[in-house]
């Protein structure tokens, strides 16, 4: 068995990565990169904003509708169900939507950048 000794710094760029960057060094390439970054940031902000809005709506709902927090379902208070279990499907749904759309943004970028 061979032992490999590697020295610092480990952060040296990977060779495959260099070619990816070189392909996009032109001015046109940079336009595509900027538009990809902008669309990914917009997507992330929209998903995060939507999630936080719904999250904020939960306690508001409990405060506005009287008696809702005293309602029990199978012996469990409704507000506990909502905050203790109801938020997780929402998180999962946001994550699924984001991953799908982010991959689509990248595919569109590949199509554009490949056409050069």
């Amino acid at each position, binding site marked *: 068995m061979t032992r490999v000794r590697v*020295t610092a*710094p480990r*952060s040296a760029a990977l060779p495959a990565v260099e070619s990816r*960057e070189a392909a*996009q060094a032109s001015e046109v390439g*940079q336009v595509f990169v900027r538009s990809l970054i902008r669309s990914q940031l917009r997507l992330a902000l929209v998903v995060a904003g939507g999630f936080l809005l719904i999250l904020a709506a939960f306690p508001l709902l409990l405060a506005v509708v009287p008696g809702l927090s005293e309602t029990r379902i199978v012996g469990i208070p409704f507000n506990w169900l909502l905050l203790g279990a109801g938020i997780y499907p929402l998180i*999962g749904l946001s994550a699924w939507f984001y991953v799908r759309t982010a991959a689509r943004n*990248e595919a569109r970028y590949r199509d554009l950048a490949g056409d050069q």
Partner: protein
Amino acid sequence: MNPGVAIAALAVVSVATAVIGFYGLRISRTTGDFYVASRTVRPWWNASAIGGEYLSAASFLGVAGLILLSGTDALWFPVGYTAGYLMLLLFVAAPLRRSGAYTIPDFTEARLDSRVVRKVTSLVVVVVGWLYIVPQLHGAALTIRITTGLPSWVGSVAVVIVVCLTVVAGGMRSITFVQAFQYWLKLTALAVPILFIIFVLAGTGTPALSAPAVNPTGLASSGAYQNVSLLVALLFGTLGLPHVLVRFYTNPDGQSARRTTVIVLGLLSVFYLFPTAYGLVARMFAPGLARTNQADALVLLLPGELVGGTAGDLLSALVVAGAFAAFLSTTSGLVVSLAGVISQDVLGGEVGGFRLAAVVSAVVPLGFAFMTDSMALAGSVGLVFAFTASTVCPVLLLGIWWRGLTDAGAIAGMVTGGLLCGGAMIAGALAGAANLAPWLAQPAAWTVPTAFAVMVVVSRATAHRIPATMARVMTRLHTPERPLATER
């Protein structure tokens, strides 16, 4: 509970951890293996390992205890811990994987092309890691004291010894297997006892307490400011945790980093149902546990309280095993990432240096743990998240998404956030929890925006310092890995 059973449970977890660590050792030979498992870990393994590493003493013991004490207000803790991972997915996961860096200091150095930024980031990361290990050791001390009657220090020392042995022997490759095993152990150790308890309660028809007793301590609920500030800390703090970030480098590419994160979100969502159930069941059936001033031990004591007998002892043993898995996995994850930073920046980056650094990273917080008193676990971990959100999070978010960030801006923002949040934590510790103003108890709501603002303003003022490599690095962070040539 029976001390012999508890000690047996601890021994089994420690031996299992060491054995899996040793098994990993046989396939861990290169420096790459040591640091990031050679990036060949499968998504399910990797996601289980991330879950195992992330679910700390605060999640396993603290959340249930806090829910018992303060009810629905404490439900924001598990929600925040999970939603923090959503933010990580949205803003950090894929770009960070694509950066090709191994640690947060590697990332900031590459992005800002500055050695000084690297040093400052390393310092911050080491502080965060040490702050985060201390509550784990407090949790271990509490568990040992409650379940075996041995002195508290035995627990902290045992955790440090097992972690040092595992990390020094196998590095990250064995750590990945150990962590994945420990996620499933933790889930089983929480789920089986509480399901059994609910089954027994339903079978015997034990009546739940009437509404007034459901608030056992009569504590006033915390205000909206505290809840919002806590959420800010948890949502943004997760982004910057060093042991969480290093895990993303074990994915082969950015898209698989995203997929892994989605699996992690599922694993966390399932896990956090159970501490919530413990808190609620304790409120309805055993509110006396809150009055003994040891709410953090709720998860350990509930099976004995509500089931009792041999079945209660066995269930308690399972919970103790899970708790120890939590301390071991989070501590070893932190030690690995801290050792990576320390060995590179102080000792020159060889495997021997990594081992020495691992021991240093584990022993220093042990000293802190001896010197400080244990506060509520979920609360003290919440403060660490606030510190991370005020320092590492702004530099990561702006570094990934904003072209205008400069080295001067990054340093000014990290130092400001660190001083403000650290100052609030020290002031809070000196003043004591009882007479603490809300804005000092939960500083994230003002320290995080301040850190961001300082970083942006100083970067704007020093715009001539934007590194020449910026466009190249931004391309690397955001473009998909597959080479364009093979695409068509």
